[in-house]
């Protein structure tokens, strides 16, 4: 299916894979790109050498376009931003802030820039800075979340900017893709569905938790520190929620409690101490598939629903 997004990125299907920290590596990114979507490597808090290594690995695994997600609050953000320009990575998505200061250098390197935004004001600000598209991510998603839902955010961002809008948060199958089109988006970003992809190197415990999750299995913590995060309920999340609600517990203790929890989930599969980030559609993810099967199934369902429908996407 051709949309403004597939044309912008030179890809086959309008699906971007979410840049999940500690999870989205060269293995998953190359598999999604080979499946006709856009695979993304997460730069998370890693240094430039680590990310460069993943980029090189990805290039040996696919000749299709792929991207790097840069977390703007990373301590290594400056060196990683410079490195992706040197490497001429095809696409950069950004999270956790405003990437305007990097736009000039990235455009000079020919990079397509797509920031993740959680409000219309941020969408307008990055459009003015010269980015190519925005990902409007609602709070149904896993990981760091905003208050607005996808249903409310996407059409408002579509109205606020002239550049293409990609919908994210709560999308896990073809129905979600068609819903995103109905809201005015020209593509989707999916994270949770790809967690159980065969090529996803996340821990086995993580995959089992996603496969076992139902509709009400996720919760949000971290509002007190201003960085709310959605993850699957477990001992870690319940303990965090208790500490967060206790006004006698200082913020520093809370921050310390969260350190390393994502690595424990993604790499060690520590069921009780890990933070298993996942979106609200985790309950819809019930089988292990290759990235190619996931992209194929999602698009086949969307194509079928779109038959006879004429939309300008």
């Amino acid at each position, binding site marked *: 299916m051709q949309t403004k997004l597939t044309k912008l990125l030179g890809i086959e299907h309008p699906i971007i894979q979410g840049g999940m920290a500690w999870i989205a590596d060269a293995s998953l990114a190359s598999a999604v790109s080979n499946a006709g979507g856009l695979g993304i490597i997460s730069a998370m808090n890693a240094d430039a050498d680590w990310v460069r290594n993943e980029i090189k690995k990805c290039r040996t695994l696919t000749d299709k376009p792929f991207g790097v997600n840069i977390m703007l609050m990373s301590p290594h953000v400056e060196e990683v931003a410079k490195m992706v320009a040197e490497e001429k990575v095809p696409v950069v998505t950004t999270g956790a*802030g405003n990437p*305007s*200061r990097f736009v000039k250098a990235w455009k000079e390197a020919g990079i397509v820039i797509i920031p993740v935004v959680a*409000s219309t*004001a941020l969408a307008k*600000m990055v459009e003015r800075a010269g980015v190519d598209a925005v990902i409007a991510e609602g709070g149904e998603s896993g990981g760091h979340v905003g208050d607005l839902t996808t249903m409310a955010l996407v059409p408002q961002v579509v109205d606020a900017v002239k550049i293409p809008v990609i919908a994210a948060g709560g999308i896990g199958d073809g129905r979600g893709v068609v819903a995103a089109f109905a809201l005015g988006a020209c593509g989707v970003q999916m994270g949770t569905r790809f967690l159980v992809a065969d090529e996803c190197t996340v821990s086995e415990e993580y995959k089992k938790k996603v496969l076992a999750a139902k509709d009400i299995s996720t919760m949000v913590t971290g509002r007190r520190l201003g960085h709310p995060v959605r993850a699957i309920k477990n001992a870690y999340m319940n303990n965090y929620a208790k500490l967060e609600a206790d006004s006698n517990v200082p913020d520093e203790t809370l921050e310390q409690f969260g350190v390393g929890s994502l690595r424990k989930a993604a790499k060690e599969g520590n069921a009780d101490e890990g933070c298993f980030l996942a979106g609200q559609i985790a309950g819809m993810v019930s089988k292990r598939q290759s990235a190619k099967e996931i992209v194929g199934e999602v698009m086949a369902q969307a194509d079928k629903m779109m038959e006879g429908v004429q939309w300008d996407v």
Partner: protein
Amino acid sequence: METLEKLKEILSECKGEDLDITPETTFDELDFDSLDKVDIVMQIEEAYDISLGDNMQLSTVGELVAKIDEAVANK
């Protein structure tokens, strides 16, 4: 003084209540989240047709008023 009044309007609208703001009011007291801050910057920039830049490290309302007045003067 005019800038402070306009700013008071923007900040109050963002907070959803009338704020009692003086030049000495700190942004810590006002407790806006990061999306609020982006929204406020966009509103100021559109209202005055100025650019405030990306990285504003301001602690008080008075500092923001000064920054706005300076940007307007340099237009």
